[in-house]
């Protein structure tokens, strides 16, 4: 038997939506985006599913986490997967996620990216590496309209007693519905709690055309796991890192960056003592500095500094 499996398993019309967010503080809004869109589509008689990424670390504050929805005119056949392989729409609940995360990975040609930011699409575009498949980039200041909903209700697949779409998630779902034809606004409004916020997103998202791309048939990429059995660690043992752990680079957890005002620093090293990730070190000229490969931007250094020598600055103010 010899088939082109890519063709054999085509699912025309299947729309994949992926939301990126920050662990714990934004899990709920990421979930709300996908559940709001999926519920609205369900009202329209479409086939839907929605879930949170199972492998991300949902219990670490600020860690990038993902949530997914899939909407289809036909019964969804490739149901049991971990990730959306080829998203049509990617939504970021926070702007800093464009750094250090390949948010456009696998994007379908002509796909949409929606970012929660005050900034313009042109500025955001600078941080995106491969934009060849990106059709539309949309920016909306969701946090300016409403806040993040911080709750553990609905975590781990349980019922969300707090309802869907009371905060930022509603704005972003509205913006996504505007950028990509998938659900009617009225059905989305019938799903979310904060309808004004949702309508705001739909009406105020700044859309920018990035690439002109024609009609695309939805194809889920076929994943084939290949293993080098010899090269694998014996019995799953993992050598412990002695200095740094390349397998756990945490710089992309950062939404804000610590910046030192040299004149105010008295070299007391309290920040060095308190940094939970041991990312503060001394440079050759005797000043303290931050290892941005691992700094999570938790802000503890700024909080404990007795002279207010550390300031937390939005990560996206820096283009590096």
């Amino acid at each position, binding site marked *: 038997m010899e088939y082109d499996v890519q063709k054999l398993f085509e699912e025309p019309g299947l729309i994949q939506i992926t939301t990126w967010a920050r662990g714990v503080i934004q899990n709920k809004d990421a979930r709300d985006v996908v559940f709001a869109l999926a519920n609205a589509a369900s009202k329209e008689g479409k086939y839907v599913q929605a879930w949170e990424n*199972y*492998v991300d670390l949902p219990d670490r504050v600020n860690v990038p986490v993902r949530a997914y929805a899939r909407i289809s005119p036909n019964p969804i056949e490739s149901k049991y997967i*971990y990730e959306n392989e080829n998203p049509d729409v990617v939504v970021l609940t926070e702007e800093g996620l464009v750094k250090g995360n390949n948010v456009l990975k696998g994007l379908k040609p002509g796909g949409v990216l929606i970012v929660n930011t005050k900034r313009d699409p042109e500025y955001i575009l600078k941080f995106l590496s491969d934009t060849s498949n990106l059709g539309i980039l949309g920016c909306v200041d969701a946090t300016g309209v409403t806040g993040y909903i911080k709750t553990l209700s609905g975590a781990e697949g349980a019922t969300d007693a707090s309802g869907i779409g009371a905060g930022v998630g509603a704005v972003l779902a509205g913006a996504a519905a505007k950028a990509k034809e998938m659900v009617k606004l009225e059905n989305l409004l019938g799903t979310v709690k904060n309808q004004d916020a949702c309508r705001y997103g739909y009406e105020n998202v700044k859309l920018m055309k990035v690439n002109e791309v024609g009609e695309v048939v939805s194809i889920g990429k076929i994943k084939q*796991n290949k*293993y080098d*059995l010899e090269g*694998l660690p*014996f*019995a*799953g*043992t*993992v*050598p*412990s890192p*002695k200095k740094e752990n390349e397998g756990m680079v945490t710089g992309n957890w950062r939404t804000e960056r610590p910046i030192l005002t040299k004149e105010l620093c008295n070299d007391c090293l309290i920040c060095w003592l308190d940094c939970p990730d041991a990312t503060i070190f001394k440079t050759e000229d005797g000043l303290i500095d931050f290892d941005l490969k691992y700094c999570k931007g938790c802000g503890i250094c700024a909080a404990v500094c007795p002279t207010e020598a550390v300031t937390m600055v939005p990560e996206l103010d820096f283009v590096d």
Partner: protein
Amino acid sequence: MGKKRLITGVVATAEAVRLADVDVISSFPIRPYTGIMSELARMIADGELDAEFVHAEGEHAQLSVVYGASAAGARTFTGSSGVGVTYAMEVYSPISGERLPVQMAIADRTLDPPGDFGSEHTDAEVCRDQGWIQGWAATPQEALDLTLLYYRIGEDPRVLLPQYACQDGYFVSHIAGEVDVPDEAQVKEFLPPYKNKHQLNIYEPQIIGAQIEPDMGPPLQYQRALAMRNAKEVIKEAYDDYNRIFGRNYSPFVEEYMTEDADVVIFLQGAHSQTAIDVARRLRNHGEKVGVVRLRTFRPFPTEEVRDALSKFKVIGVVDNSANFGIAGGGGVLLTEARTALYGEGDKVKTVGFVAGLGGEAITRDEFYRMFAKLKDIAKTGKVEQNAYWVPFEL
């Protein structure tokens, strides 16, 4: 050369543990295996054995102690019976998954209820797919030999898997028999020192049992499956060496008794095989062509050897000394696995199950006699009317 002694299975096992020069032992009492630990404690107190003896707060902890000790490079020993075996269930897969050749003696015992001390293979058999080497000793001598054999097999770098060295509770564990206790020089020749592949070491830290992502799961399981596959070759080698050095005559997987021209045989494992052989011999004296096939290694299940052995006969009665409620075929694990081994042989080999000796009841000679009679009937009529019989209620 060794010394002849009249000892029970529990003492024979302890003697083997002493001879294997085990480093760490963890115990928790439950009948009938307890005697092994009392004997080992005595040996340590009397200076016959130099080992750490950790009395754990329960079987789960017991297994956790040897898990860590084995990772640190120690040769380890533990054991249990009945509900003690099942209480430790969580720890079995991590030990085999980390490829630590811990040895656990199981002097088997029926699971509750009833709170019955009697022997039944159920407790050990429910652990059968946890990645441990497993088999049954049918005499105190075999209990000693199995202990030494399993250290050698489990610690082989091609295998590195833990082992359940099982013996029938009471029948083997508590009835003293003559045992040849080998001397240390023989054991030294047979059993090299234990060397772990990923020994814990403060200078080269590593994480054992780390949390991994789902796509790392398949190769881990596959590595363990390959180890189980490799074990067959290693088991053969180990038995060859054992027979040579200690003057025994064991077959590694399947042993046949009076099967040359037999049309019907009983297939089983453990102590009750001794009774079955006795009954077959008496029937032979009257010209009945009956025999016994005994399974010596249960995990890895020797599919080819069982097929080759059993496919020669017309009718096979598979005796299960375990309670497997709702199982396919209505017998026990051995029946389903024997049938799987016979896949492809078609209807020329007929199989029927007998569930017997539950709750620690002895399987009497009279019961084996009735089983043989049933097999003879089937051979004559060519009809298997019932997949399996619960003895004595249905036969």
